[in-house]
């Protein structure tokens, strides 16, 4: 039974750790499916995390914090759009620049406003998103097997967790079942086809980037307002890059993206759980090894096991109207 409980606990933290990855990964999916590479997921998440925690602690409202996180993250997404869509700049350079600006400005502003070494004040209850207890969780808690799964694993997460997982079918539906999705995928494959069909390539790509900004904003808010009780400098810690790896791994498909992020989340959860405790047969594994696993896994899987990941064909190429 102990083993069972341990597994449930690892899976529970898998879900918690996957959420920011999943939101960022879906964010990248909108952008890259529209043909705009976005290496700035990391930066936008960081800005979202800072803006969310700062606004929540100043206005004492979790929802205002979330709103501000989204607004600031979208603003950064639009900067990326202005550089790479309107001015046809290099999308990688623009994304990297956004990451630098985000890393620097959040610390400077945090220090200037709150004088806590770049942190935001610890969020009080009501300023954070609290865990939601699903109906009947307490009642069913002692039922073997189902009880712990329902009350530990499924219940007791914040609203943003449920939102993140709801975004998976929603994103699939938007991409593959709506006019907007058809056009978005088309503009990532052949923008000239979209242009000659009488649709604005730029406006379509901007809309995709706004979707990206909204999702990275939520991802950031999750980090600073759910996982943590406030903003800490560089708290995204490379999650934006892991999300990008997950996106390639998922071949730019929403449901695959969820499983990829859950896998990376699981590795993370396992790494934390196994810290210091020896593994059977292998013995003690350095924590760095576990932390490196997601990346090693990406390389190995991309190299051979998942087949060729074909990115959207117009990805990374600014659209220039030429015949």
């Amino acid at each position, binding site marked *: 039974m102990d083993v069972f409980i341990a597994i449930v606990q690892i899976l529970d933290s898998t879900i918690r750790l996957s959420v920011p990855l999943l939101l960022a990964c879906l964010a990248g999916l909108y952008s890259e499916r529209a043909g705009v590479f976005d290496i700035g997921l990391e930066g936008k998440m960081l800005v979202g995390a800072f803006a969310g925690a700062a606004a929540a602690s100043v206005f004492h409202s979790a929802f205002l914090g979330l709103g501000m996180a989204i607004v600031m993250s979208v603003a950064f997404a639009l900067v990326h759009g202005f550089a790479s869509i309107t001015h046809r700049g290099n999308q990688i350079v623009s994304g990297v620049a956004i990451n630098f600006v985000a890393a620097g400005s959040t610390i400077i502003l945090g220090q200037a406003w709150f004088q806590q070494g770049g942190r935001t004040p610890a969020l009080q209850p009501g300023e954070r998103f609290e865990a939601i207890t699903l109906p009947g969780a307490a009642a069913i808690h002692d039922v073997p097997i189902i009880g712990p799964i329902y009350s530990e694993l499924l219940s007791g997460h914040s609203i943003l967790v449920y939102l993140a997982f709801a975004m998976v079918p929603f994103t699939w539906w938007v991409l*593959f*079942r*709506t*006019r*907007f*999705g*058809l*056009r978005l*995928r*088309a503009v990532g*494959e*052949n923008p*000239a*086809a*979209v*242009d*000659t*069909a*009488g*649709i604005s390539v730029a406006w379509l790509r901007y809309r995709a980037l706004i979707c990206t900004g909204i999702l990275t904003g939520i991802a950031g808010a999750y980090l600073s307002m759910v996982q943590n009780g406030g903003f800490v400098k560089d708290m995204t810690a490379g999650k934006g890059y892991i999300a990008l790896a997950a996106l390639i791994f998922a071949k730019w498909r929403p449901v695959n993206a969820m499983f990829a992020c859950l896998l990376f989340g699981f590795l993370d959860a396992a790494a934390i759980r196994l810290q210091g405790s020896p593994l059977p047969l292998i013995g003690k594994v350095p924590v760095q090894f576990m932390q490196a696993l997601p990346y090693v896994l990406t390389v190995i899987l991309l190299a051979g096991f998942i087949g060729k990941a074909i990115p959207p*064909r117009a990805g990374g190429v600014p659209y220039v*109207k030429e*015949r």
Partner: protein
Amino acid sequence: MAQAAIELIGINKSFGAVRANRDINLEIARGTIHGIVGENGAGKSTLMSILYGFYQADSGEIRVGGKPASIKTSNDAIALGIGMVHQHFMLVDNFTVLENIILGAESDALLKKSIAKARSELERLEREYGLEVDPDAIIEELPVGLQQRVEILKALYRGAEILILDEPTGVLTPAEADHLFRILKQLKEQGKTVVLITHKLREIMAITDNVSVMRQGTMVATRETAKTTVGELAELMVGRRVLLRVEKGEAEAGAVKLAVKNLTVKDSRDVTMVDDISFDIKAGEIVGIAGVAGNGQSELLEAISGIRRAVSGSVMLDGKPIDLTGAADPGELRDRGLAHVPEDRHHVGLVLAFEENENSILGYHDDPRYLKGPFLNIDAIMADAKDKIEKYDIRPGNPRLKTANFSGGNQQKIVLAREMEQDPGVLIVGQPTRGVDVGAIEFIHKRLIAMRDQGKAVLVVSVELDEIRSLSDRILVMFAGRIVGERGPEATEGELGLLMAGVERQEAAE
């Protein structure tokens, strides 16, 4: 004359200092097929892009159906019933036919309804115009002929009454082109107006009612097709008399330079494409290989030039064998005097992102003439490039210009200049004038004959029968991977056509 579908009055368009269209006047009658011919860069595509809302004219007026029209975007053009089939298809390769057709013209925010509506509409269009295509097929799995059909359906689905086709046959096999022409005639019978942009005069003569000729941005003439000739049109296009058939003397064939014996080649799907072929090419003759595209010519060329592995057989160059394992060193073959002008200049012949001078020595870059110690001798390379530009009349004459910015005909000249100027003993040329203007064709043909007269052995593979007949001293016809007949240059088109279609040798001779 019927009422005009489109009238263009005094259209001007400049790009910087280049005047692409000057004071163009054009009237296209409703329910006709109107051809627009001109050399590359004559301004045909610019004019049509203005009509389709891709560019804005600097001045001038467009009237559609007699009413002045303002066409600022492709949307405006579509709303006016103008549809365009671009030279490079504007399709999303991994979408289905239906998805491509509704893109931008979806009837509903949800795809399900749009697709259901499009499906029934598509069935109607397919019936009406004989444009069958599987609506659920993925574009990239369709042959180009069908992809083009999807483009036409796309325009018709948007209610196009006027259909503009930009160089529609450039990518088609002759059979596909014939089918396209039947479709266009059918569209005309249904009252649609078709504008056909091309530089192939035969096509103009075959299906248009009227033809307009453009030269250097101006509209030089409009003729009724029935009352003009290919010769007149060619002259109007180039601005001088053009020899459609280059004069040449008798060949003085010498020793065998290239001997192909029992060569068999398979393609990547393991289908036998070249089936036990043998032939010789002697010094001082041009051997032409005729055939409908896809009958093994490409694989034959690739095997001889050492790019593709041969299954069996041998190829002797000056009596010594060529490595046919597919691992031949192209540099070594060049050293032995074999020059190769590949069929597909974009993928094999040139690096489009390079400057002209770099492409003009590509593959010969380790020749001591272009080197200074371990470094490239830029001065020598530039001088060499300038020399070739002058000799081959490559325009614009700027060796520093990116190769992608040259027109197709001039890119072809860059490749030809590079290969011919190395003074090879054997020259293998695939599709020497594909996508090349009438004026440049004459020039290229003359150069090839000059090579022959210098005693070189020349092998020409072309799908253009006229070209083969005009150039060759001997004509080999390929069908289904075999050589089905050899004829002299006096062979008639009909006779060769029968051979190309695979009709038996005896029957053809009768």
